[in-house]
């Protein structure tokens, strides 16, 4: 296999709090090729956002990357200096947040902000930076970009602001965009518009994308591959067809069965019992054990990563469908 654009190996990010060590990310492996869209799915608190922040070196204290590697184009970003990271952020890797106001400055016009963003990484004239900004706005489907460049963030709707944030992320044609739930707060028709633009842009520019979300439906529509997180770990990864059509981890299967539209109308949903564990107090071995209907004595030990390929793997001693295949542990 050729070296991927991004490879995350055994990433661990912990928060040292008074209540104890919060192992927000505790052994995450990911890989992403150029132009590929990876959906990073999981319930709240599973560590999706911290994973994204760790890749970019943006974890706030008391959080710290305590283990693993983040290889971006062969370079390990864990331990890279702040100067090097700043050069990569915004230019090679861009971030889009759920709240676009994390990116936008309320007191500056959109044009001023975009020109500054261009000039932060490249020595180009103001006129050229302005022209680049115009084109970026047009690319995300914003009509009359000249007028819009003169406007301020409060003059835009939530959906428009998110488009502007995406346009800013695109300014330097980055190799990778990490998007953290950017459409979660938006309405269905507005979300569909943004998913449409993003899908088109990735195809056209070859930009790779990590789309963080709790919404399996969005992922299945948008992504090429999926990584499912539970309690700080990636518990299963594969193509959209593999994850949705043939889930091997009991948690992935449980999530899919919980989706109302995959059940017959009116019949009780097959829900996962119990609740999401606190990362302060995880059970020994497999974190899903207390909720799992397939758990056995083996599950008190942490399951290793098993699978067919590096990018088709699961962490489970008794994977779904193992009986039929005869490959149970």
């Amino acid at each position, binding site marked *: 296999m050729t070296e991927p654009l991004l490879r995350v190996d055994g990433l661990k990010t912990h928060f040292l709090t008074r209540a104890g060590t919060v192992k927000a990310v505790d052994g995450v492996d990911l890989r992403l090729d150029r132009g590929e869209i990876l959906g990073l799915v999981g319930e709240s608190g599973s560590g999706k956002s911290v994973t994204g922040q760790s890749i970019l070196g943006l974890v706030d204290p008391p959080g710290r990357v305590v283990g693993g590697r983040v290889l971006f184009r062969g370079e390990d970003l864990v331990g890279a200096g702040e100067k090097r990271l700043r050069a990569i952020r915004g230019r090679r890797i861009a971030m889009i947040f759920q709240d676009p106001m994390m990116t936008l400055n309320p007191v500056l016009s959109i044009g001023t902000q975009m020109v500054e963003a261009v000039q932060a990484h490249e020595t180009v004239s103001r006129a050229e930076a302005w022209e680049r900004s115009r084109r970026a706005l047009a690319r995300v489907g914003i009509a009359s970009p000249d007028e819009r460049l003169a406007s301020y963030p409060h003059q835009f709707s939530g959906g428009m602001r998110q488009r502007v944030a995406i346009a800013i992320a695109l300014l330097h044609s980055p190799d990778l965009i990490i998007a953290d739930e950017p459409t979660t707060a938006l309405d*269905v*028709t507005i*979300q569909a518009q943004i*998913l*449409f633009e993003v899908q088109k842009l990735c195809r056209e520019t070859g930009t790779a994308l990590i789309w963080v979300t709790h919404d399996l439906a969005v992922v*299945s*529509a948008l992504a090429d591959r999926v990584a499912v997180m539970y309690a700080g770990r990636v518990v299963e990864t594969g193509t959209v067809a593999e994850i949705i059509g043939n889930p091997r981890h009991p948690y992935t299967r449980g999530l899919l069965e919980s*989706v109302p539209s995959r059940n017959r109308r009116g019949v009780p949903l097959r*829900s996962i019992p119990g609740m999401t564990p606190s990362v302060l107090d995880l059970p020994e071995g497999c974190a899903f054990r207390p909720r799992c209907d397939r758990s056995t004595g083996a599950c008190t030990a942490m399951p290793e990563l098993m699978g067919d390929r590096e990018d088709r793997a699961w962490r489970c001693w008794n994977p779904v469908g193992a009986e039929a295949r005869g490959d149970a542990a």
Partner: protein
Amino acid sequence: MTTAPIIELNGLTKRFSRKLDVVERFARRLGAAIDDRAVQAVSGVDLSIAEGEVVGLVGESGCGKSTLGRMVAGILPPSAGTLRWRGRDLRELSPADRHHANLKIQMVFQDPMASLNPRLRVADIVGEAPVVHGLVPRREAEAYVAATLRQVGLDPAYLRRYPHQFSGGQRQRIGIARALAVKPDVLVCDESVAALDVSIQAQIINLFMRLRAELSLTYLFISHDLGVVEHISDRTAIMYLGRIVELAPTPELFDKPNHPYAKALLDEAPRVSVEKRRFAPIRGEIPSPLDPPSGCAFHPRCPHAMPRCSAERPALREIAPRRWSACHLNETTGP
């Protein structure tokens, strides 16, 4: 249907006035024609809900779902229109009867944390209303709360705990227990599963369905999640900018929506499926209710808009038995 509906709304309307800001007030003093701007959050809604029925209410944010739900629950007085409870106009009831009717319609909110008093124990959160309203003598309150908690799948041992000591799913169960404690006939559920994770959401949906069967409850189930509404409701109403634009039995509506907005909404909601899809979104933004488009409010975004659509508002008409839609296309080409 021969029996009178449990709830019947006729022309139900809610206007909120928005106070002018400083600039606008100043401009008005100089002679500008500016009024206190009124937001018409809900406009002339007609809807009948039969006893034991689950009606789903969907639409994008700001379309008026919560405002409608709060009027039905008696929390918000309508600006115009009538609300009938078991065939009787609420305004014509004696204060005692109106009070009784209001108790019979309870609301379950989205954010369990925000809707539960953090300083009260579960025993008081759930037990207060039935005692105050004389449904349960105070000395029996604790046993009554324990039974209600069991009904929603919570351990009565939690009686002395405070809301922050529970997970999101458990807090939603407490919110449901509080509503059930006054023995309502109708629950208005406003985004009651929206804040929950998928696996927990499924547990609460199952709870709603079980309670419906056990207690013969009627629901007005508000949600922006089409999958949830499709799963749980018998009929579905779709709102756009304060009005119901389509109302139909759920399987028929999801199978073959009539109104162009309903079609767009159903097409664009992502579904969990292995088929790769391309989004073909409808254009434009959701218009502001401060300044609604003329005629059919959907016309600036509608792929089928005709000259008539910006001039004349289409009425909600029965286009087939039990199927209602508000679109001029039904008059020119039929459904």
